[in-house]
């Protein structure tokens, strides 16, 4: 659905996007992460055929972004960073206007307006001027605009910013539904928890370059090392190290706990439990040490991984 290769954008002498290559299939969500000014919005604008790439190429929904700009734009739903709504227009009229621009007939426009306003809880304010809306309501309306023509590709810049937790949940659920409906989705966000929750792939972009890219799991392994487990015990170890089976390496321990790395944890963990029980060491819990995307992000951004190879995304 979205394929780019060596995408670059040069503004005079400033290289805003430098060789971005991504591949997002139907039914996949790619989260584009990076600090402000990293080149996320410029990349999205190129994918929307609003800006022309200076080098490289991109195909969106099967269309070339340079040669078939109008077709690309017709196939893409965009939630822009700034919502850019018309304050004096009522919500329903606003959506209908965009429906006209996308060439929808009056009957389907009316139906779609009702559907989307209902979906985002805006039905009772359909005749209210957008200028009177709260930030969250505007965000939902802008998202409804992006979805209005039911595009196969969605490019969403900060889809839940300024939303209350309930609305944000509603939007995240919508994104999941869209992914299930075989849409290809790119999300630009600073909300790392949201990215982790929704994305099949993560790409971290810095100074116009993708510095790391892959599935959340692959990125964690590549950047944070193998998964670490922790065992909580019912009695003190008294300075002794428990006997552990082959494939398990203790990395740290306290009075009644220890942490370890395991090669093939699906086999090593049962063996470890069995060994501990045989040694009469009471086990309260065994769990994986949680590792957040935030750790991955900070590690990637902090220079050390600028030159690392991009791991396989799948």
């Amino acid at each position, binding site marked *: 659905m979205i394929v780019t290769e060596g995408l670059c954008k040069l503004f005079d002498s400033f290289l805003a996007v430098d060789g971005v290559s991504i591949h997002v299939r139907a039914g996949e969500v790619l989260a584009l992460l990076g600090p402000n000014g990293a080149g996320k919005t410029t990349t999205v604008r190129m994918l929307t055929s609003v800006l022309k790439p200076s080098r490289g190429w991109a195909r969106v929904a099967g269309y070339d972004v340079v040669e078939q700009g109008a077709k690309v734009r017709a196939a893409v739903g965009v939630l822009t960073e700034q919502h*850019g709504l018309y304050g004096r227009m009522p919500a329903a009229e606003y959506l209908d206007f965009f429906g006209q621009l996308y060439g929808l007939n009056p009957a389907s426009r009316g139906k779609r307006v009702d559907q989307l306003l209902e979906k985002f809880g805006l039905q009772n304010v359909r005749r209210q001027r957008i200028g009177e809306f709260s930030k969250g309501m505007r965000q939902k309306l802008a998202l409804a605009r992006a979805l209005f023509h039911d595009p196969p590709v969605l490019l969403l810049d900060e889809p839940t910013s300024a939303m209350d937790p309930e609305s944000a949940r509603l939007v995240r659920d919508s994104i999941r539904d869209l992914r299930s409906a075989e849409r290809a989705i790119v999300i630009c966000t600073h909300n790392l928890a949201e990215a982790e929750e929704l994305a099949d792939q993560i790409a971290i972009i810095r100074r116009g370059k993708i510095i790391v890219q892959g599935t959340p799991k692959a990125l964690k392994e590549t950047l944070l090392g193998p998964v670490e487990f922790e065992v909580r015990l019912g009695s003190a170890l008294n300075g002794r190290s428990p006997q552990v089976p082959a494939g398990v390496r203790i990395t740290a321990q306290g009075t009644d706990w220890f942490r370890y790395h395991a090669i093939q944890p699906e086999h090593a963990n049962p063996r470890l439990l069995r060994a501990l029980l045989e040694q009469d060491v009471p086990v309260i819990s065994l769990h994986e040490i949680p590792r957040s995307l935030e750790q991955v992000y900070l590690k990637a951004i902090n220079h050390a991984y600028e030159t690392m190879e991009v791991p396989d995304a799948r």
Partner: protein
Amino acid sequence: MLAELRPALIITRREIRDQFRDWRIIIPILVLTVLFPSLMNFTAHQAANFVQRYGATAVGDRLMPFLLMVVGFFPISVSLVIALESFVGEKERHSIEPLLCSPLSDWQLYLGKLLAATVPPLIASYIGIGVYLIGLYRKIGWTPEPDLLVQILLLTTVQAVVMVSGAVVVSSQTTSVRAANLLASFIIIPMTFLIQGESVVMFWANYDVLWWAIIGQIVVAALLIRTGVSKFNREELLGRELDVINLRWGISTFWRAFIGHATSPFDWYQKEVFPTLRRLNMPLGLIAATLAVGMVVGAGQARVFVLPADALQLENLGKGFVTGLEAIRFFSVENVSAVWLHNLRVMMLATVLGIFSFGVLGILVLMVPMMLIGYFTGAVAGAGISPWLFMLAFVVPHGILEVPAIILVGAAILRLGGTLAAPSPGKTIGEAWLQAFGDWTKVIVGLVLPLLLGAALLEVFVTPKLVPLIFGGR
């Protein structure tokens, strides 16, 4: 074709509907459509009665068409505000981005907005004209000539298009309505000149001249639309950061255009000044032709405004002519500098006027001396004196330097003024203008100033002495 226009009309419809939700636009339009024409109607009636009491019926007769033009113009002045709001306001509020992400092509968006900014003020203007005419007809039975009415309607329409298309060009240089309002002086000032000129025509009652004004503005509108279409595109709208007044950048851009890579004055002439002249080939030819036309027009006027015979007794210019000039200390360095500075002032005036009128008013200023030369040449020819000898005595000695200087500065002004109407691919209008200003400065400093200095020296020390040699005692 209609299918291609439909998206543009969707934009137009939305914007017009939006305008009618804004009382800041509705109230001025209503006032200018209903109240203002009624007031003009009253004024015309009162003024006609007043001047009739003193037998000056011609003033009243000419006041009514003039007010007809004014009534038509005032509502369309709102189009400038609407256009700036529509083009820059959308950029400022970021509401343009969702439109740019839609399947609309750049020209559809441009056309939709152009129509939205032009149509409501124009309709208001036509209604205002209607209110004014109906009122006058009912009060004093006055109706305009059909030709004049057509001219006024066309003039009003084309002026609205010029203002809106100019506003788009201005808008392309800014991302805030505030900055756009400041830059709008590039539209308001020429329009003011134009309206003043048209007012003179209305009182002069030589309405055929209005056709030229209409044709001229159609050409200007076409040029502005061409520039607007080339600048109003997704890449320019979202790909550039404007509005930052970067003085350092401005100075360095100008300096690069002015000095280039020259290392010495000789190098500068070779690498910068002469190549600039080559770039100015077409404007140079155009100005030379225009000045020649000016001379011919001046010569033609000599038959209309005939000089009295005693004013052309050139054979009386004997030795006493030079003695007389010596007596008033004409042959002095101070006089050279006075002539030089006078010519420089004219060049500067022409440049300033040219900047605000796509070069047109600047060229008109430069045409004046050529028309005068033509006029006097025609006059002496009419008096039986050889025009060639007249030229040889009075014009050629210093004109050999002064006329090329006029042509050079005219070409540089045309390039400078024309920058707004001629898109430069890959450059902002500001960048292109600074480069044109660099070229103008090169021409002025490198060529015009020395040429005018030489011309002033010749005009003070040589021409007056040649005149009696050629004409004295004949």
